[in-house]
């Protein structure tokens, strides 16, 4: 659409089956995980290489028959494989999500000190309040004061995003960078939060409220980690 309005474009494609029919003018196919168009975190040289190859596509003349410029980035991204030295946070003594959150607090603080930010900030709730909101949602208890223009269900979605981010950030605190598979396997299969969220999803699918069914059924648990 932008090209039609006079702006030259280059595009990263993470999924060729989606980009090919649209036939954008210039495409760089990359062999990276969904969510990682630049390949890997904290790898400036690699990211720069990807971006440079993208920008160089502006030099390629338009192919005959109004085709697309298609190129493929040949290297796999670093840190896609499991990291053998990574250890999951120790949560075996926790009997509740609240206890898990407390146990993760030092690691999360370490993450913020190292990285300089947390992404667990969408709902405006601290993570303990977010967890109480989630657990009391169906009973209508522990509901935080409403935010103008935001339904409780939408706010809950953001609260869940914050909880997941908090856990994953804590698990990413160490310099040994776990793979996304290691991190999600831990979250969804070894934490009480993962269990709680999967239960919430199951209950949402049985709800008479179509919005609850949609939000809870589709926007909480990734398909890869459904039971």
């Amino acid at each position, binding site marked *: *659409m*932008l*090209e039609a*309005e*006079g*702006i*030259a*474009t*280059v*595009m*990263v*494609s*993470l*999924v060729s*089956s*989606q*980009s090919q*029919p*649209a*036939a954008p*003018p210039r495409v760089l196919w990359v*062999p*990276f*995980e*969904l*969510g*990682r168009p*630049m*390949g890997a*975190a904290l790898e*400036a040289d690699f*990211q*720069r290489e990807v*971006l*440079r190859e993208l*920008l*160089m596509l*502006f*030099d390629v003349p*338009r192919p005959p028959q*109004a085709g697309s410029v298609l190129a493929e980035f040949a290297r796999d991204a670093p840190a896609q494989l499991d990291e053998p030295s990574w250890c999951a946070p120790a949560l075996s003594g926790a009997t509740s999500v609240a206890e898990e959150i407390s146990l993760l607090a030092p690691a999360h603080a370490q993450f913020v000190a190292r*990285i*300089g*930010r*947390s*992404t667990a900030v*969408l709902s405006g709730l601290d993570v303990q309040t977010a967890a109480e909101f989630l657990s009391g949602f169906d009973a209508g208890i522990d509901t935080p004061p409403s935010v103008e223009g935001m339904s409780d269900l*939408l706010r809950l979605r953001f609260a869940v995003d914050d909880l997941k*981010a908090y856990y*994953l*950030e804590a698990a*990413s605190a160490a310099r040994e960078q776990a793979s*996304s598979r290691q*991190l999600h396997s831990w979250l969804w299969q070894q934490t009480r939060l993962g269990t709680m969220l999967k239960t919430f999803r199951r209950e949402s699918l049985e709800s008479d409220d179509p919005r609850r069914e949609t939000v809870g059924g*589709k*926007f*909480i648990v*990734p*398909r*890869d980690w459904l039971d």
Partner: protein
Amino acid sequence: MVRLTDLTTAMRSVVASVAATAVEPKPWVNVRRREAATVALISSAGLGVRGDPLFRGGDGDYREIPHGAPDADVLMSHVSVNYDRTAYQLDLETVLPRRRLAELASAGVIGAAADTHYSFMGASAPEQMQTQAQTLASTLHARGVNAAVLLPV
């Protein structure tokens, strides 16, 4: 692209089910001198600056992200849970490479990085974004941007 063989069976079916829209006719804009181009980043990761409205789902509009906005103030409120966010959590450059773009401008690969970058929320119908894309194009022209890097998640 992510290799379909690297995806789980569940995600392979999700990816295959997403219909892509063919665009006719196929437009093309020449970049006469890449080394002089002013380039903006346009993401579909549902990014916005703290204080701006979060994306809710089905949004066709976009958010502006100043080139110099602190990483801590750039938030992702994309509705999909079916892609990995752990790299973004570690490093915003993974999805919005503002510093990388500036470095390549300093190296002479492009003329300049734009002062402002942009984000849509990709899990929206293309028809919803079309009018907004036209508005964005006008804005880019007005701001002297002549090329864009499109970044999915």
